[in-house]
């Protein structure tokens, strides 16, 4: 593959999985390289699941753990309703992901690779199954597992706990970093897209990887754009691409009200902040992160508070209900947002309570689920400050009652319907 070109991860025909023969014809044979982790470090690859942690550091940490057996887990759970990147990646170049997983397994001394795909994504499950059967055996044991499709089931500790104990519940970790363990053996867990990047770096090296992207922010990333766009799409962009250019490529509303970045636990960027490059450093200056590569565009016809409320109501329902502040706090926040959305007498109280409750809930769960919601709500209050003021004054915007809702929120399931096993 020539340096400096895109797409890389999505090379080929979208939604038609490349067979193994085609895959080798496009990308070439994968030869094991002894210095893979150094190469990953030199490439500056960071995790694409949301935390953007340096992949090489994490892999070295697991490599240096003692243990005669280790696991590599590929996290393709993709619980974000607005994210479709992992599904598209597995539907286009499944073998690239498996190559990356095998390379990582060799580098950290693991013999087993587990690919985790939510079981309600039946097409992806089929595609991965087919890829696994047609792949020649290369001494690493590859396996597909299908945990339930809950939002928190893709959280790393919840995923490993499901693999270990058949329960998709996040685990309390008093000290970090922590070594996740499957049958007491150390686990290296990486996002599906991250692993696919590893598959490319293992072939072409760090310099090739950095031939695309901004200085200090090398490489490309997958972005799922949805909301007020012509069609929801997944784009592969070079890091450092202006956000406006990404929005234009997705044919988004030319004058959006705001954009939700990162995911449903991400940050809202107001329209005035949209002149920003899409990379870690530039977004951090606006208090945002690329997160899991989710971009939701909210147009003038929609009400940002209503969108936030719908998302929070769903996120509250997706809580594993293990920790009190999350189990009780998130529904309370959703209720406050509903009052604010409807405007009128309670709105001012609701807003005050919202701010107070956000402060109370933050940092008190076993996982970061409540923290993400709090971040999203806080940035919503800032990004939609004028709308909030209108709602408080009893003049809710037109979109608050009727009109299009743009954030894709699945049906709210009853607590009894939620499957955790």
């Amino acid at each position, binding site marked *: 593959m020539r340096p400096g070109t895109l797409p890389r991860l999505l090379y080929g025909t979208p939604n038609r999985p490349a067979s193994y023969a085609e895959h080798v014809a496009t990308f070439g044979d994968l030869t094991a390289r002894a210095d893979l982790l150094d190469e990953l470090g030199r490439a500056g690859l960071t995790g694409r699941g949301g935390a953007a942690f340096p992949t090489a550091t994490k892999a070295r940490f697991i490599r240096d753990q003692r243990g005669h057996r280790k696991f590599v887990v590929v996290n393709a759970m993709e619980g974000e309703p607005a994210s479709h990147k992992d599904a598209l990646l597995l539907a286009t170049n499944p073998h690239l992901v498996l190559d990356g997983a095998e390379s990582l397994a060799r580098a950290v001394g693991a013999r087993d690779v587990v690919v985790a795909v939510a079981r309600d994504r039946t097409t992806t499950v089929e595609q991965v199954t087919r890829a696994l059967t047609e792949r020649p055996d290369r001494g690493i044991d590859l396996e597909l597992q299908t945990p339930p499709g809950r939002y928190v089931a893709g959280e790393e500790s919840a995923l490993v706990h499901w693999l270990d104990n058949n329960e998709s519940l996040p685990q309390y970790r008093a000290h970090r970093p922590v070594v996740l363990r499957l049958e007491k053996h150390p686990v290296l867990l990486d996002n599906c897209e991250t692993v696919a990047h590893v598959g490319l770096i293992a072939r072409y090296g760090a310099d090739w990887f950095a031939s695309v992207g901004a200085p200090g922010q090398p490489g490309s990333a997958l972005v799922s754009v949805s909301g007020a766009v012509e069609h929801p799409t997944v784009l592969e962009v070079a890091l450092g691409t202006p956000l406006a250019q990404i929005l234009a490529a997705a044919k988004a509303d030319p004058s959006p009200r705001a954009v939700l970045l990162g995911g449903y636990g991400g940050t809202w960027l107001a329209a005035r902040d949209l002149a920003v490059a899409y990379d870690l450093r530039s977004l951090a200056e606006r208090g945002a992160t690329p997160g899991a590569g989710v971009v939701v565009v909210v147009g003038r016809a929609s009400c940002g508070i209503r969108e936030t409320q719908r998302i929070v109501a769903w996120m509250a329902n997706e809580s594993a209900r293990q920790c*009190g*502040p999350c189990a009780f706090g998130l529904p309370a926040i959703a209720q406050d947002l509903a009052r604010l959305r409807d405007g009128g007498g309670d709105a001012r109280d609701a807003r005050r309570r919202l701010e107070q409750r956000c402060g109370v809930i933050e940092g008190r769960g076993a996982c970061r689920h409540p923290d993400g919601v709090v971040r999203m709500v806080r940035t919503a209050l800032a990004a939609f400050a004028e709308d909030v003021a209108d709602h408080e004054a009893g003049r809710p915007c037109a979109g608050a009652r009727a009109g299009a809702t743009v954030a894709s929120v699945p049906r709210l399931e009853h607590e009894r319907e939620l499957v955790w096993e």
Partner: protein
Amino acid sequence: MGVIRHGEFVLRVDPVQCDGFGHCHELAPDLVDIDEWGYPIIRREPTPLADHQSLRSARYAVRGCPRQALHIERVEAPAVPPRRA
């Protein structure tokens, strides 16, 4: 006991274990506040181990927790004077 202790401690709660009984707030009101749903909000700043009163109430809280969700954790004070040069 009876030893001059250097360093500081914090209380830590395992939020998964905690069911919001609220005993910790009763037993160590200085260290544990409580939210509107009855779950503990632990004071984040470390307390010196030399503060016997606080350490004792923290121990009461740990023992009094019906879910055994509380732990005392020692944190190193930033500047521990060396015992002998």
